[in-house]
């Protein structure tokens, strides 16, 4: 959470000659991070990020406490001034005449309240208003301002009730039942989810959504005479649940949900009382109701010298360690190499094990003072997963053939998939509500975006699709897909064939019907009887699209390519031109020629003119040079078989 505090307010608790720039720089290096300093009217405001584990420093006093430990490490003297209060006048007692309270201590570990009579509601003095405004809180009147002022100064949220609106002077602090209703003082009405901390008065009415916001039934208003000052700690988990469920994120709630210090409660009450006396001229009851069945007992934690040195990676003296921890209010006791520290109440939530103590030592020592060294230990010996190199290799090949890689969103509108898919419970909007099951819609969109900018292009992507599985995480299947604009089918298919050639995968094509492609406009790509991918014309947009399973490509691409002796005898190469009837699949003709004789090494489709198709055929025998007569014999057989299979005839 971010807090804003005034420099002059900070100096109420911090005696130092450090400039705001120094304070800001040094506490950022060793403690809470000052994001920015803003100058206003001869003063300045620190904008500070306080991490969730350090709610104890989310206040003016908390920052002063951190600064008093950090600044001396940079050679600047700094002393923490105590919180002034007239504690001796008041007594904390388990019961008081003005309020009968029944409190569930599991929900509220410490409950305090005090009656202040005959308050005069007025505007707050300038100094209070200035402090609140600097922190981003609008001053309203002295009573409400006191609550906010104490919260900002000490980090203890404070609430006030109009005492006369609490029926029968009775309170029951309990868990809500599901469906109970309450109106908070900002006028919002809530039906409670159940298990929320609420306060019921003697009239059976809910008068407070505890720790989050007061109820409108007990609200302090312009005609309020008597105020019940109310300072507590609450079960942080309960506060968080309610606050999240109702989306009611008050500053009090964001503090309470992190777990506040029970010992801070008394300081909060006393500070508020002091302000009530001076600002509202109210009469404060001498007895403060304090229901606190298990007061804080200082806990301790231990750490070993070896552990400190090993984790810090440097040598450090016991004396220095003691000095750093003492400045942070930990009591230190060394027995041999074992250090035991006593944990003050305000750090009880975040200091538990040796790793936590180590952090305190390390940050005050200063991370900037530590050397930088790469590990000297053994390097793990495992063979790296080949998929990463393979992916890069594929990308290099495709980009070499003119493809431009894109990254499209893996979240798509539900309307873009009619297959079984996963959808989000809380999408940012309908356009990104589902996890994609195909890259086709994304690439079609990417293509559309570019139409008109250039006429010929090829986009591709390697990304996951997400295929739902019952009772388990989806299968995340890595897909290579590409789309062409302005390429004729043969050029596009040639690129796909080129990719597979580079990957040393022998493939065949077979016409199949497939979703998203035009009827009879898709071919599946096979290798050794398995489908690796497909290519075809997209039904919707008419562009050529291809896709492959990356895992299949990896599996079928040989890891090591075996050497084949270079042929000793030259091949006989000739062009064969055939007339073929309309609607003959040339891919089938090529494979028929190739399969026709073992001595045919390669068949390439060269060109087509009207219905005459020219094929370039290489005949080769590894043991000798073929004679013209031998080639003629093979050719004649092929031609006659093509004649019967496809109705082919030879030109000329």
């Amino acid at each position, binding site marked *: 959470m971010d807090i804003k505090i005034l420099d002059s307010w900070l100096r109420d608790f911090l005696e130092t000659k450090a400039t705001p720039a120094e304070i800001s720089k040094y506490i950022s290096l060793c403690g809470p991070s000052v994001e*920015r300093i803003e100058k206003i009217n001869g003063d300045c405001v620190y904008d500070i990020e306080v991490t969730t584990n350090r709610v104890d420093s989310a206040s003016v006093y908390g920052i002063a406490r951190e600064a008093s430990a950090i600044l001396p490490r940079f050679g600047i003297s700094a002393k923490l001034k105590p919180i002034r209060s007239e504690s001796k006048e008041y007594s904390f007692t388990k019961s008081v005449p003005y309020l009968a309270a029944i409190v569930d201590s599991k929900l509220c570990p410490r409950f305090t309240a005090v009656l202040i009579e005959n308050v005069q509601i007025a505007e707050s003095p300038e100094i209070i208003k200035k402090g609140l405004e600097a922190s981003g809180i609008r001053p309203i009147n002295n009573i409400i301002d006191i609550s906010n002022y104490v919260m900002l100064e000490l980090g203890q949220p404070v609430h006030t009730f109009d005492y006369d609106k609490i029926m029968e002077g009775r309170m029951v602090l309990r868990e809500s039942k599901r469906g109970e209703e309450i109106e908070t003082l900002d006028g919002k009405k809530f039906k409670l989810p159940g298990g929320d901390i609420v306060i019921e008065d003697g009239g059976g009415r809910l008068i407070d959504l505890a720790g989050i916001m007061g109820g409108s039934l007990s609200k302090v208003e312009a005609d309020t005479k008597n105020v019940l000052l109310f300072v507590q700690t609450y079960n942080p988990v309960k506060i968080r649940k309610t606050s999240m469920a109702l989306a009611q994120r008050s500053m009090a709630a964001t503090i309470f949900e992190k777990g506040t210090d029970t010992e801070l409660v008394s300081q909060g009450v006393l500070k508020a009382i002091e302000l009530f006396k001076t600002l509202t001229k109210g009469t404060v009851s001498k007895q403060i109701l304090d229901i606190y069945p298990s007061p804080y007992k200082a806990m301790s934690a231990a750490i070993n010298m070896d552990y400190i040195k090993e984790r810090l990676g440097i040598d450090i003296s016991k004396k220095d360690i003691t000095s750093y921890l003492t400045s942070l209010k930990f009591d230190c006791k060394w027995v041999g190499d074992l250090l035991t520290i006593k944990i003050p109440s305000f750090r009880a939530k975040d200091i538990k094990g040796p790793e936590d103590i180590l952090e305190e030592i*390390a940050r005050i020592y200063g991370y900037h003072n530590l050397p*930088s060294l790469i*590990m000297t230990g053994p390097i793990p010996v495992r063979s790296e997963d080949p998929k990463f190199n393979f992916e890069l290799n594929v990308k290099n090949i495709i980009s070499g053939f003119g493809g431009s*890689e894109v990254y499209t969103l893996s979240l798509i509108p539900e309307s873009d998939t009619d297959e079984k898919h996963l959808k989000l*419970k809380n999408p940012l909007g309908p356009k990104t509500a589902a996890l994609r099951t195909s890259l086709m819609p994304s690439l079609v969109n990417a293509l559309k975006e*570019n139409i008109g900018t250039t006429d010929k292009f090829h986009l591709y992507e390697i990304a996951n699709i997400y295929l739902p599985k019952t009772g388990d*995480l989806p299968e995340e299947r890595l897909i290579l897909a590409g789309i062409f604009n302005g390429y004729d089918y043969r050029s596009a298919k040639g690129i796909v064939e080129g990719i597979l050639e580079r990957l040393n995968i022998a493939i065949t094509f077979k016409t199949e019907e497939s979703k998203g492609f035009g009827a009879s406009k898709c071919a599946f790509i096979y290798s050794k009887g398995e489908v690796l991918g497909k290519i075809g014309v997209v039904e919707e947009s008419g562009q050529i699209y291809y896709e492959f399973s990356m895992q299949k490509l990896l599996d079928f691409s040989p890891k090591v390519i075996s050497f084949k002796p270079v042929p000793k005898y030259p091949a006989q190469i000739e062009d064969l031109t055939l007339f073929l009837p309309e609607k003959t699949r040339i891919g089938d003709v090529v494979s028929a020629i190739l399969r026709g004789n073992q001595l045919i090494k390669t068949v390439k489709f060269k060109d087509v003119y009207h219905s005459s198709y020219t094929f370039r055929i290489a005949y080769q025998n590894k043991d000798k040079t073929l004679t013209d007569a031998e080639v003629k014999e093979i050719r004649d057989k092929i031609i006659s078989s093509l004649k019967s299979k496809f109705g082919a005839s030879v030109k000329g």
Partner: protein
Amino acid sequence: MQEDILSIKNQAVAQIMSAESASELEQIRIDYFGRSGKFTNLIKNIKNAPADNRKQIGQTINEAKESIEELLENQKKIFKESAREWFDPTIPGKMPAVGHIHLVTKTIEEISRIFGRIGFERARYPEVEWDYFAFETLNMPKDHPARDEWETFFVDAPENPKFGKMVLTPHTSSGQAREMLRVKNPPIRMINIAKCYRRQSDVTHVPVFHQFEGLVIDKGVSIVNLKGTLDYFAKAFYGKDRVTRLRPYHFQFTEPSFEIDISCGVCDGRGCKVCKGGWLELGGAGMVHPNVLKAGKVDPNIYSGFAFGWGVERVLMMKDGLNVPDLRMLYSTDLRYLTQF
């Protein structure tokens, strides 16, 4: 006769030197050495000279002839060279279709290479993940306020009795426990680069982005090693003059936790509009929390480690001179952007 020879020779030399083309030279050759050329006639006339002079005259003619022939050849060569076939090597070429590899891929490869050099092994873990790996193994029990910082997308699918809700992983840290469970015995040096998802979209955030997660686990791994590794990366990636610093921070899954800053390359750390007081925030890191080690079945009494999870796009955007104004631009599919890289 001697004078005639020398005067013809001088005449020839003068003509050769002033000739302007190979054909002119050829004409000169014919004029002097042709069937009725001047030299040819001189040779024919030797027989008319007095007998005792003939030998000397013959010698003089030969010398003159040889030197003129040599001169002719040389001059011809010069003309040949300047008369080469016309060719324009600057004529614009016919480029094949030029492809492009995406900036994010290039960045991922660069990151992998940098960490690969110091023994990190690449990994990738699920994008659709259980709450258990995304949060619980990272020391963030249910309802922990720290979870707020991860604007998590939830998948509309039944909860798993053991692993809880299905989420889109908000960070690569989900791979920490998975890597420990896979490897079983440290040492571990992992660099996990994968897609992550957060419910946010503005100038510096996109809902789908990439992180790279480093995880090092071994005996005696210290904060000094974390500093060393990240400093090495920053120098390798941004340049050797850049320095890093650690500031305290808090993450549930590391203790101590840090934010890592790098000195600003624009102002060399003096402070400018781009940076905060001379520093730019790179990302978070920390010493692996013992509870996270335990979740990965690694004994925190024997092993320690550090981890960091940084945005690929973020470290890329911080490269000097890239000047992409809006992180969302990185994911544009506009070829006018794609073909720039």
